[in-house]
């Protein structure tokens, strides 16, 4: 049954309204980043800056090591995403294909582990990393990010593995492939959209994470972008709004670029397993 013209127009309007709603903070951030301090204090702010300039960007770069911080964030987030996917994939395979009390309990644990607040785990984690001499080091932070994103990555991947027909793996086994070979040559390619979606999740989680990075990294040259961004914020919420907006805008770009590049694959990943064949 096809929707009538008014109904379709209504749908488009609703979609447009939703897009505007979603895009509003980002567009406002861009607008703010290009405004002068005086314009930021205007009672009637405008969408388009009246006297746009790059002063906020210049100030942000002058005051804080944004490029170094972006580099650190990129290393931490990419490494965490890669390791999380590599570690989670075989685990997900086992949990999806071999159902037992243990895998059921493991799934339950995955759900529970997502409920722990950061402040509850940070002190024991800090002590462990200290004893491993991994405080103030990106490898230590990456390790935390992997551990932190692993449960959810695992949970996501289990669903994707289950969507891959078991018969394909059985056929591979008949042809003489071992389990590892089956996983690498048969299951993994079919899982690709799911792997990308999971990696993106782990990347964005690590890219945006603030508290662990704040606590674990001491040296300015090792700090990540979210930590550097707070240096534009003072006591009681006072903020250097222009440079903060400029830096925050720059901080969103890598996520946007990566998302734009792989969005088609993600869409595939999201839909994989939605319908049983």
């Amino acid at each position, binding site marked *: 049954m096809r929707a009538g013209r008014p109904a379709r127009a209504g749908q488009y309007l609703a979609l447009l309204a939703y897009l505007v709603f979603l895009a509003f903070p980002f567009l406002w951030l861009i607008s703010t980043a290009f405004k002068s301090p*005086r314009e930021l*204090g205007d009672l*009637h702010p405008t969408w388009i800056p009246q006297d746009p300039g790059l002063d906020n960007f210049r100030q942000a770069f002058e005051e804080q090591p944004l490029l170094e911080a972006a580099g650190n964030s990129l290393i931490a987030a990419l490494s965490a995403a890669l390791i999380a996917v590599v570690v989670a994939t075989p685990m997900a395979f086992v949990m999806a294909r071999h159902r037992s009390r243990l895998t059921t309990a493991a799934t339950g644990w995955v759900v529970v582990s997502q409920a722990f607040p950061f*402040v509850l785990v940070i002190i024991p984690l800090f002590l462990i990393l*200290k004893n*491993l001499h991994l405080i103030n080091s990106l490898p230590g932070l990456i390790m935390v990010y992997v551990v932190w994103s692993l449960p959810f990555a695992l949970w996501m991947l289990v669903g994707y593995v289950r969507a891959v027909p078991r018969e394909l793996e059985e056929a591979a086994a008949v042809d003489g492939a071992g389990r590892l070979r089956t996983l690498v040559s048969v299951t993994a390619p079919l899982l690709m959209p799911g792997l990308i979606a999971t990696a993106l999740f782990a990347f964005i989680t690590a890219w945006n994470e603030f508290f662990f990075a704040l606590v674990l990294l001491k040296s300015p040259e090792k700090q990540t972008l979210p930590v550097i961004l*707070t240096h534009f914020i003072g006591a*009681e919420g006072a903020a*250097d709004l222009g440079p903060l907006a400029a830096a925050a805008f720059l901080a969103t770009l890598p996520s946007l670029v990566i998302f734009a590049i792989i969005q088609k694959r993600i869409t595939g990943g999201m839909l994989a397993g939605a319908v049983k064949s």
Partner: protein
Amino acid sequence: MRAPRTLVAAVATALLLTGCAAAERGPDKDGVVHLRFQSLAWQKESVDINKQLVKEWNAAHPKVQIDYVQGSWDNVHDQLLTSFEGGEAPDIIHDASDDLADFSYGGHLADLTQLLPARLRADIPQQSWDTTTFDKKVYGVPFLQEPRVLMANEKLLKASGVRIPTPEQPWTWDEFRQITKRLTTDMGKGRYGVAWPLKEPVSATLNLGLSAGGQLFHQGDDGKTTIRFTDGDEVVPGTVHDQVNTDASASAATLGMGGSDTLPGFFGGKYAMVPLGFSYRQQIAQQAPEGFPWKVLPAPAGKAGLTQGVSPQTLSVAEDSPFKKEAVEFIDFFLEPDNMTRLAKGDWMLPTGREALKDPSLRTSKDGWATGTALAGHLRSAPAQAVRGYQEWKDKVATPAYQEYYSGAIDEAALRQRLEKDGNLVLARYQR
């Protein structure tokens, strides 16, 4: 062979986790001591001055080198707590005095009583030391502070013909209420005599409440603290409540805002006055339209005069630091009068030191410096900062209670009951 291999791995991991404690810190192979100084300075001028002072110290003290570490006000308490618990705290710690009580009672901060040089001790007045003194021990050096003042649109005040207050002749709270009524009438519809940014209502209310004799927290002979909402405690919240709900001379919309959020309305002539911290002058100077006629006025006075509570910025030394003496020597240098003046100007705040306060650049009328300097002698320790359980009381009891009272959702009797009854239950848990 699987079981032994697993066992070996488990034992190795356990050894790794438990046996690799950090070595005791000491001078490096060249005999140079390295101290970490975590600063929370965040505005460019302030960061520059902090770094410059560290550079000057390092140049003059080759055997004691300071490593500057940029901290952040955001989550500083949790970040420090983790560092303390993990034995990785910076040697010299920048924080605010209202954050020190838990750390000092927890044994994380060094008692500086015997370490402080006489010069520094004498330069900072006792009321400032009171903000960092717990159990008669000093856990931090207070060095920057800011009173709450009224940022006023001078043009609107003059047009209305109201008396302009000075530190010598401030408004009373009653007079302030009448003036905001008059201003609102003169300014016309949709405009207000005052905008109270009370997103965080508790410290503003308690600190200003000292002027009217409010105290709220009372220590008994048994050493235990209880909450009593007296007539003095009622003056400030009552004034705000009546301005919003009875007179309509204060904007109800700004009650949920932070200080910066009210500035566009202030610049646009929507509000004649905004009570803000002294350091907000920097944002006004930067953002106000060219020629905007702003003026700094003292907050209204009550029966205790211009007294108000503050939580100064502080410098402390970690108890775990093996170089406490060197750390205090650096603090002494860092807070020499000229340096304290530079730090105060960088942060647009007031120095605590008597000598620094004498600097002519802090006594100029430009940007309201003179008004702030005149208030320095009236600043006292914030009423609740040494009370254990204050944070929980503030978050769970006082913040929602004051917010509801200011918005008119509850009356004064309900406010009193919530603050006292619910509040004392919270405090009791911390004082068993």
